[in-house]
């Protein structure tokens, strides 16, 4: 029977056909475009609209940017070189970079000092930010950094930051001695020890200070430019963290008076704009200080911005505390830990971890808000641009180059911080997904 069949079958394939390529429309870039850009008619219209928008933006921006003049003494010279063509006058940046970065009064022979402090800032925060990559001993430098940076930027006698440091060291030593007995004793003992050292230092430092200090003292009112934004941003964020934690704990407390003090403080600060607080720093705060005391404007501003930031950070941390399961508090209690121990060892490490994204958001927001000091006539980056530079006869009218530069600087810093926080969030993820 099989024979007959063999005649009717002309051809039997013995090997598999090689796989054919998928059709052109279903592979490579064409498929990707069909899926992602032109999947439907409205989508196609959207894509075309987006392309037009991008084209218009680039067609305006690129010639202006690529044709820019980087070397000219004034805007008129710029226009002469351009001769009616399109192009930015970036010469203002090469000409006035020192004012934009350091303000117009910081002595230009000393620019290396804030620059060095800025570079060391990265060395100091690297072991905190990437604690897995760097050896623990580098944290000592982080501890030293605030005093070093103060000395570098403000200059003057090296003994004042040294005694400030010694006060903290004394406080720490007392704390480690006493904390095993009682938290309160350690805490208040440390404060007393630090104050003793600072008072003693206050008497000794003037005697130790030579006529000619190694670094020329620069008064605070000479700080300006982006340096001022950086100083305000880092100092206020760093200071507001401990205050924020204290306020958050206070708001969670069962003691009604302490709770209400914290609630009123937080809600008051969060309810008013930063500008009004800066007005307070500028014109009102002096009325509340003992007669005859004069206070740096920069210090008054730091106090007010720190208060502002700590209220916001307190709310973020309160969210973290509230998000912890009740069981963690009960577990800490059942281990027999008292309140400070439970907070330090069990609650806060977890709550702070949850609050990191929020804290970073507050930090970025605060850093952006440091530009507001230009409203009370301090010459930060925006203040410098609007004040001395745009008002000068050479550069009157160079708006986009200057504002674009300021926007670029802030974008780099803020975007960097937010990317870091997302990375850290992934690092700290301990739950399994």
């Amino acid at each position, binding site marked *: 029977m099989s024979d007959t069949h063999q005649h009717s079958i002309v051809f039997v394939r013995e090997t598999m056909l090689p796989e054919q390529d998928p059709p052109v429309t279903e592979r490579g870039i064409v498929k990707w475009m069909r899926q992602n850009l032109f999947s439907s008619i409205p989508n196609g219209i*959207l894509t075309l609209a987006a392309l037009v928008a991008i084209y218009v933006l680039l067609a305006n921006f690129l010639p202006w940017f690529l044709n820019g003049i980087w070397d000219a003494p004034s805007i008129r010279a710029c226009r002469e070189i351009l001769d009616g063509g399109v192009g930015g006058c970036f010469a203002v940046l090469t000409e006035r970079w020192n004012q934009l970065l350091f303000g117009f009064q910081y002595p230009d022979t000393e620019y290396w000092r804030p620059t060095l402090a800025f570079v060391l800032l990265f060395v100091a925060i690297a072991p905190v930010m990437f604690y897995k990559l760097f050896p623990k001993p580098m944290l000592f430098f982080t501890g030293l950094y605030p005093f070093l940076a103060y000395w570098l930027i403000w200059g003057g006698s090296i003994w004042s930051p040294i005694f400030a440091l010694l006060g903290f060291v004394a406080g720490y030593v007392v704390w480690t001695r006493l904390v095993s007995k009682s938290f309160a004793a350690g805490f208040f003992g440390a404060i007393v020890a630090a104050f003793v050292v600072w008072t003693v230092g206050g008497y000794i430092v003037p005697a130790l200070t030579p006529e000619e200090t190694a670094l020329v003292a620069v008064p605070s009112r000479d700080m300006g430019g982006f340096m001022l934004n950086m100083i305000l941003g880092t100092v206020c964020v760093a200071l507001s963290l401990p205050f924020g934690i204290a306020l958050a704990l206070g708001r969670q407390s069962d003691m009604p008076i302490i709770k209400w003090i914290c609630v009123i403080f937080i809600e008051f600060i969060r309810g008013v*704009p930063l500008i009004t607080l800066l*007005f307070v720093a500028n014109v*009102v705060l002096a009325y509340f200080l003992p*007669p005859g005391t004069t206070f740096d404007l920069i210090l008054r501003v730091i106090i007010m911005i720190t208060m502002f930031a700590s209220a916001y950070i307190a709310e973020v941390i309160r969210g973290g505390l509230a998000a912890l399961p009740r069981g963690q508090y009960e577990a800490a209690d059942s281990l027999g830990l008292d309140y400070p121990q439970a907070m330090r060892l069990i609650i806060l490490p977890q709550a702070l971890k949850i609050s990191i994204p929020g804290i970073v958001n507050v930090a970025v927001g605060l850093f*952006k808000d440091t530009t*507001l000091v230009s409203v009370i006539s301090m010459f930060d980056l925006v203040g410098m641009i609007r004040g001395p530079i745009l008002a000068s006869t050479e550069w009157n009218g160079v708006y986009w180059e200057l504002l674009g530069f300021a926007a670029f600087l802030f974008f780099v810093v*803020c975007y960097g911080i937010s990317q870091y926080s997302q990375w850290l969030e992934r690092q700290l993820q301990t739950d399994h997904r």
Partner: protein
Amino acid sequence: MTTLSDPPRESFQLSMLLNDTRYRSYTFQFIALIALIAFFGYLGSNLVQNLRDAGLNISYGFLGEPSNYDINQTLIEYDSRSSHWRASVVGVLNTLLVAFLACVTATVIGVIAGVLRLSNNWLVRKLMAVYVEAFRNVPVLIWIIIIFTIMTAVLPAPRDFRGDDPAASMLFDAFAFTNRGVYIPKPVFETGGVAVVLVFLLSVVGVFYYRRYATKLLYDTGKLLPMGWPSLAILILPSLVFYVLLGRPIGLEYPELKGFNFGGGINIRGSLIALWFALAIYTGAFIAENVRAGIQSVSKGQTEAAASLGLRPGRIMNLVILPQALRVIIPPLISQYLNITKNSSLAIAVGYMDITGTLGGITLNQTGRAIEAVLLLMLFYLVISLSISALMNVYNNAMKLKER
């Protein structure tokens, strides 16, 4: 036989104030209260002494005095002979105006950008990501100044509109964008105009009732009435009919070039536009992120369940996703509104006369009443913030998931 007996009652000892947890909290609170009172007492005594030294006093009498300065954009009658109090009220209204405009615009921008960030169109998605990152990471003050610069330095001067071959021209012959502000047509009400407006307001109410009736009918009987076209018809037709019947009582007054400036129409100052758009675009980027997070918070299973019930994509969005997403979106949205209101105080940087510009700016500088002015200023913002937070709490309680 064992007998249970109460432990002997301890007598109160002074050391228990510190060592006994029952009493320790009283000690701490007492110390805190004393410290607080001492702190405020110290500040108060400094204040009294400083004021005495400077020969000043605390008084709000200055609010009744003539202000002696002009405000270029006012919603109510005001001139330089009006009192400082009236100037402050003008400022308050200007703050509320710019905050309202910016809130509405920011919501529109934010919702569009947030939805487009989830689009399956790669290019649009990336473009929106660039928008959000660019605006979230640059201070709003810089954006305000940038837009203000566009309004004052880039737009043509009114004299460019003159001549036979002008360098600039008006949009639709009705809108003039000049460096002295934007001129738009002004509605002019003749007799009967008010009636048309009333009819329009009534039809808005009518649309609301029609939709409610349609929903009720749907739930009760399952009968589905068309929503879109009838609503539109109810909204527009009656007003249109009345408008024609009453002989077109609402006219438009177009801005016209008179001399070296425009006359007629409504002049919106560049400072208002700068503040409005900068706040809207900046906050819009934040709202976009909130909207995106809200939509993503609704799990995919909800969409799939709705689809398997046979709902169309539009209904899935309206009936299943949005009600759940809104619960997540609205609280941060309201706090963004609060931020807009507070950030509108940056008006002082571009010379828009909001409350910070009048009471906290010129009035403060003219009268030197720093404490009083700043206190009033803070009080105003505090009242706004607290009332919005109170509303938010009411909303949160109403929307809270009712569990068991």
